[in-house]
Each structure stands twice: as C-alpha cells, then as structure tokens.
C-alpha cells in the first residue's frame, strides 16, 4: 500500500436478490483528502460504504486499511469503529428515545472507577461537544424532540468526536441549511488538516466543489472513474454520473408564467400550534406555488403541518375552497383534497416492510376507506405508472421499500401523494436525497401541477430550488411568519429577509 493511502477497496462485488448492487468496484482514499463518492440514486454508494463497515457482506473483493495487515472484513459498525472507521449513515440510526448525551456516547460511554457509566462526565462532555458546534441542544433531552436537521448534526458530532482515520459521511447535508453546512465544512477541513481521510456522499454539486479534492463516480453499480477535482468540471461530472449530457440549470418555468386563479384554495387566518408556530395568515390560489423559507427551526415545516393537521392547529380558522373547515386528523385534510409529503422520510414516510406497490397506494387506499380495497390490478397499474414516471429503481414493484436506495424511497413517497391527485399539496423537502437528473424532473412536475390548477407549498433548504419553482415566498423566523416576497425574487432578497431587519 502506498504511504499516503489509508483505505483501498478492490473489486468489491455485492449482489442483493435480483440486483447486482456493486460489480468489481475499486475505491482508494488517501490521507488528508476529502473524497466525493458520486452517482445517481441506486448507483451503489451506500452499499459500498456498508460493505466497508460490515453492514453488508460482500461476495468478492478485498479491503485494506493502513496499519492493519492483510485484507479486512468488518463484522459490524462497532468493529469498523475499532479499526478507525467512523460512519454517519444516510438514514440516521441513533436511538430516538435516548437522550442526546447517551446517543453521543453509545458504545463508548465514559466509565467510573467501578466500571459503571459515568453520567456526569458524559453530560459534561456532550455539552462541550454541542457548544463547540454551536448547536442549540439540551443534551439531557431525548433525541426525538429535535428536528431532523439537528439530529443529523448530532450524528455528525458523534462521528467526528471519535478518533478516526477514515470518516464516512453518507449524505450528511441532506436536511441541513447553509449555515450548518458551513459548520460541517469547517469541521471537515480541520480533520483533513489532521490527516483524516473523508468520504463524502452528496447530491449537491456545489458542495462537492466547495470542499472536495477528488471524485469517484459510480454508475449502476460499476466504477466510472476517479478524478482530481480540477479535471472534472460540473458538466463532465453530470455526464459521468448519468452517462449522458444534461443541463440541470436550464430554466424550467414556462414562458409567460402560470395562470393563477382568482378563488382562494387555502385561506388560513391566525392558525397556530403552541411552541411550534405562532399565529399566521396564509392564502393560496389555484396555480400558485408558494415557498416557505427560513433558517433551521424557523417553523417552516410547522406552518405547513398546522394547515394539514399533522400538528393540529390550536387557534385560528381555515377555509378550503371558501368553506370553513375543521381538521382534526390528516385524513380530514386528505378528504378536502390536501396532501403532505413530510420531511422525515424514515420516521413519517416509508412503511418499511411493505412493498413499493403498497407504499404507493397507501394514501389513496386511506382516502377510499377500509371497505373499498383498491383492486389488485388497479394497484399494480398505479404502482407501475409511478415507477415509470419517477424512474424508481427497484427490483420489482413487490420489493419491500426498505430495500430501495434512499433516493428511490423518496421517489416512492412522492408517488404516493401524486397518486391521490390532490388539489393542494405540501412538499416538505421533496428532493431530499434525490439525484440531480430526477431533481429537475420533480421541479418540472411541481410546475406542471400548478399549471393544472393545483396549489402547492414547497419547502426546501435549497433556496435556488425554490426560486426555480415558486412564484411567491413566505419567510419565517423563530416560529413566526415575518414576511412575503413575490414578483422577481432574488437570492439576496431572500437571504436578507431571512436574516432579519425588514419586517414587511
């Protein structure tokens, strides 16, 4: 092994029933480099990582780690950790019902002289860790109390706190805002300076060019190549991943704009949910796409959830198509023609053990009721339709959804809501974990829905994405709606309003 190499993987091959996830893939990680692992949804990025950390048993190939004789095969994540490989998985796998401090130190709890867990020291060290990262977290609170983004930061904090020579980050930024991403990048650069090799998986191309030194591209389970960052500009990277040229930045808004109706589809007055979102007003007409933006914890998801009844509104009135309504439960909202794609895919999206088909028809079946089973033939047609439309990569429509790659799971959940044909659809981070090609397709789909006279709420931590799709934006700060922007919105304008100052 060369001197400056910390990890080599050679000829890694891995087959799942019906899918060859990896076919003779090579990967090399050097000391003190940040190495992007890129590829479309289902290309095999997470699988490669899991082969390294022992979650998956690969069939052929060899893994070598600097300082260890001979090929290694880890038995599990803990085993990998002992060899200096620290991992943040794509789906956060911490324990929601343990405290933040406990989560930070699982498997490596500080001990007292008697060998019992030293809780006091654990809490002190956890506090220090959180302070270093400037995270607004009480370490004695259960993890589940915090937003997905904070959970993601906590998972990262846990991984970087361990002494490691290889750090793996599988889509760590998928629910982070720019400021958190910046924090993470600072951390990564510090570790790089210390000689840690970092593997970074993401679908955000700008982030790759911001921190990475080298890129390895996978396509359909095979290696396309390894490139120094300077030799693979954006256009070439996309071509390498997709196997064809593609312009992801082309304008998608139709010429002359979308026709906006006159009648209010949604008219919320003074809705609120204690501790989450202060009373707000919001109107939405047919054909409108309204974006909700604001910093982490600003209440942008909470606002949408209060309308949909995911967190039941405690004050205020809501009119849907001019009729005043009371929503006690999401099914009431659905029967009024609403739909909501939640941001936390694992906790509130997928029904892991059910098949892709069952997951797609799930919301539709709920709308029809328990007695009116959707006939199997219709179910299959609907499932096939959305698998094709959203290019879902799955062995078959009967595959359990938990066996799909993260991005493909997300597509299934999008399909679930499109299948209900809602008049009003809330999309909370719909493109989370979705590759660059499909992302554009989904943005186009949003505009198409608006053209069909539907109303949408679009939430994303990526402002560019919202600028591309929304015709109006509501800005939130500290659980309060502080303003609206419309017309030709620019990024600076949004940033300024988010940061504060001009309340409109």
């Amino acid at each position, binding site marked *: 092994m060369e001197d400056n190499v910390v990890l080599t993987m050679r000829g890694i091959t891995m087959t799942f029933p019906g899918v060859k996830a990896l076919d003779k893939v090579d990967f090399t990680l050097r000391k003190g480099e940040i190495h992007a692992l890129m590829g479309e949804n289902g290309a095999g990025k997470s699988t490669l990582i899991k082969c390294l950390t022992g979650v998956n*048993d690969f*069939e*052929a190939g060899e893994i070598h780690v600097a300082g260890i004789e001979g090929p290694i095969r880890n038995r599990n994540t803990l085993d990998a950790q002992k060899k200096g490989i620290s991992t943040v998985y794509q789906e956060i796998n911490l324990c929601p019902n343990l405290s933040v401090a406990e989560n930070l130190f699982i498997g490596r709890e500080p001990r007292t002289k008697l060998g019992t867990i030293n809780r006091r020291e654990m809490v002190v060290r956890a506090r220090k860790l959180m302070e270093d990262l400037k995270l607004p977290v009480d370490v004695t609170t259960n993890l589940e109390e915090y937003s997905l983004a904070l959970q993601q930061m906590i998972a990262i904090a846990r991984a970087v706190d361990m002494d490691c020579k290889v750090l793996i980050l599988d889509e760590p930024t998928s629910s982070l805002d720019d400021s958190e991403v910046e924090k993470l990048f600072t951390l990564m650069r510090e570790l790089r300076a210390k000689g840690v090799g970092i593997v970074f998986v993401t679908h955000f191309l700008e982030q790759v060019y911001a921190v990475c030194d080298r890129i390895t591209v996978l396509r359909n389970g095979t290696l396309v190549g390894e490139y120094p960052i300077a030799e693979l500009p954006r256009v070439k990277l996309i071509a390498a991943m997709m196997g064809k040229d593609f312009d992801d930045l082309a304008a998608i808004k139709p010429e002359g704009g979308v026709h906006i109706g006159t009648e209010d589809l949604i008219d919320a007055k003074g809705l609120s949910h204690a501790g989450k979102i202060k009373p707000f007003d919001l109107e939405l007409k047919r054909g409108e796409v309204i974006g909700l933006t604001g910093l982490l914890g600003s209440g942008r998801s909470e606002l949408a959830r209060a309308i949909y009844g*995911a967190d039941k509104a405690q004050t205020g009135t809501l009119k849907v198509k001019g009729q005043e309504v009371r929503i006690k*439960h*999401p*099914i009431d909202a*659905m029967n009024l023609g609403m739909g*909501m794609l*939640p941001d936390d895919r694992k*906790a*509130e*999206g*997928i*029904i*892991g*053990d*059910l098949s892709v088909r*069952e997951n797609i028809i*799930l*919301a539709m*079946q*709920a*709308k*029809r*009721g*328990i*007695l*009116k*089973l*959707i006939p199997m033939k219709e179910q299959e047609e609907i499932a096939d339709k959305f698998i094709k439309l959203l290019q879902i990569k799955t062995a078959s429509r009967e595959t359990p959804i938990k066996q799909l790659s993260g991005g493909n799971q997300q597509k299934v959940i999008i399909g*679930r809501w499109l299948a209900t044909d809602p008049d009003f659809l809330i999309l909370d981070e719909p493109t989370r974990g979705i590759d660059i090609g499909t992302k554009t397709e989904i943005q186009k789909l949003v505009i198409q829905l608006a053209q069909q006279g539907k109303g949408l709420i679009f939430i994303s931590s990526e402002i560019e994405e919202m600028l591309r799709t929304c015709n109006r934006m509501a800005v939130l700060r500290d659980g309060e709606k502080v303003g609206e922007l419309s017309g030709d919105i620019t990024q600076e304008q949004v940033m300024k309003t988010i940061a504060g100052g001009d309340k409109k």
Partner: protein
Amino acid sequence: MSFLKKLTQKQLFLPIFSMILVMLINMIYDISKGYAFYNFFTISINNGILYGRLIDILNRGSEAAILAIGMTLVVSASAGTDISVGSVMALSGGVCCVLLAGPGNVNVSEFAMPMWIGILAGILVAGLCGAFNGFLVAGLKIQPMVATLILFSAGRAIGLLLCNSMIIYVNNDAFKVFGGYCWIFPTPVLIAAACILITALVLKFTALGTYVQAVGINKDAARISGYKSSAIIFLCFVICGLFAGIAGIVATSRIYSADTNNIGVNLEMDAILAVALGGNSLGGGKFRLSGSIIGAYTIQAITTTLYALGVSSSQAPVFKAIIVILIVAVQSPAVKAYFARRSAAKQAALSAGKGVQA
C-alpha cells in the same frame, strides 16, 4: 445451498418446518411401536364419526386456532399481546350458561331462554372485553400487556361471580353440538374453519390487512397518510375479544358446563406462541394469518404427540417448552446470522479457490 437459504427466509418456513418435524416424530414413534408409519394420518369412521390422531389434533386445536386469528391482528397492529383471551373465554362461557340455565339454577336440561340469545350474549360480552382492552391501549396508550392484565385476572373472577362460584351445567343436546359432532365432523373443527375462512375473505376483499400492517409497522407514517391508528388498534382488540368469545362457547359446550376455573386456562399462551411459531414478529407489523393457524395446530400436535408418547400431563409442558425453544431458535436472528456468515465464508473460500484455478 442458496435454495435452502431462500427457503429458510420464507415466512411460512418456520410453521411448516415445525409441522413436518412433529409428523416425523409421530412416524418414528409409530414405527417403533410396530404400527404402520402412516398411522398418524389414518382417518377412519367409527360409530358414524371421524376418528384418527390427525382428527383429534384438529379438533383439540380449534380453540387455539380461533384465538390465534384475533391475536395475530392484535400483535400486528399494536406490537403487543392480549393476555386476557383465556380469561375472557371463561367469562363468555359463564355468561352463556348463566343465561341458558336461568337465575339460581346449577343443573338444567331445559333452556331458560332461546339458545342463540345465550350464545350471542356470551360472544358480545367477550367483544365488550375486547373493546375495554382496546380503549386502554388505543385510547389511554397503556402497554397492551399491562392493559390486558386487568381482564386476565378480572375476567375469570367476574365469571365466577356470575356463576356464584359454582359449575353450571347445561345438559341439553342442542347445546352440546358446538363441542361435539355435526354429522361425522367434530363441530369445533367446522367452527374454526368458518372463523378462518371469514377472516381470510375479509382480508382478501377489504383493506383491513393494509390498515393493520401500516399502523403496526410505522404509526407516524400511517397517520400522515390518513390512517387513524387508534381506531385500527381498537378494532383489532374488539375482533380479538369476539373470537375469544367464540372459542369460549366451544370450550364450554365441550363439557356442557361453565367451569369458570378451568376453561381457557393458559390458552392465551398457546395463542401467542401460535403467532410467533407462524413466523410473525411479536414486534408487530407484517403478518401472515396462515402462519399463525398452522402454528396453533402445531402446538396442539406437539401436545397430542406427547400424550401419545405417554408423557404425563404434568410433565408435558416441560417437553413442550423444550420443543418450542428449539423451533423458535432455528428462526432467531442470531442463529440465522450465524448460518448466513458461514455460507458467506464458504462462498468466499469457493470464489477464492476458483481464482487460483483460473
């Protein structure tokens, strides 16, 4: 090898495997005793009714099979178990007999009211018990085991109270039918078959299966997608209660008396075991009714076999426990992982060997 691996991953592998195991033991026993090896499967008609060890198993296993249906739904939706079913069986039998015998009577041969009223009342009371359990679990969010512990102890006690702590006999042929014979068939087998068939049809032609599983696998996701988890969990407990009622009537009719102290004792354990033996996770979620049913009859087969082998009824539970431990261990994640690892290592060795040859 990969064929074997695939086979062991099938959900129905475990119950069918256990069933075959039990049959094999029976065959070996028969051969050692000098009977024909197919003795276990022989069915004959004596005195106008069906006879045979298989028939006996099907007959005796009816109550557990009926209970297993409801238990499967409860486990799937709530990730917990209903331990009150045995006790509720006794209560339902008690209610039925008290009504049929009339107040104060302990031994009657004439009904005090139409038989169907007594039976219906017994089943309905059991349904109410289910509703009570469901309310505690779905409404008050009490853990299923704890919630059903209340009726586990109180159900039987209420039954005793109703019967004035006596065994009430209903010595009427019409009532004996449910635990006896209907033409050449044991009626309990027919009742169990009907219960299973109806449930299977409901699962096939309504969305109940999707509702229950979605709620059982991911309550929060199901809620956002428009499923009312509390209502579903409540419904499952009611169904479980109703089936316990039916099983209670069968058990009561077998001895044509409300022996509240002995009806359904320990049967909740058989029902829970049946679900687990059926390859269903007691952690809730995806379920397979057929697995639970086979599981229920397997447990009965084990019991019957043990008696046939001459094991006394006081020792039988010990052997039963050992067999169950073996069967469940085969399917446990740890053992599975061990075999998966071994086969992976073999595969690796094999492909390495190939590499050398090439």
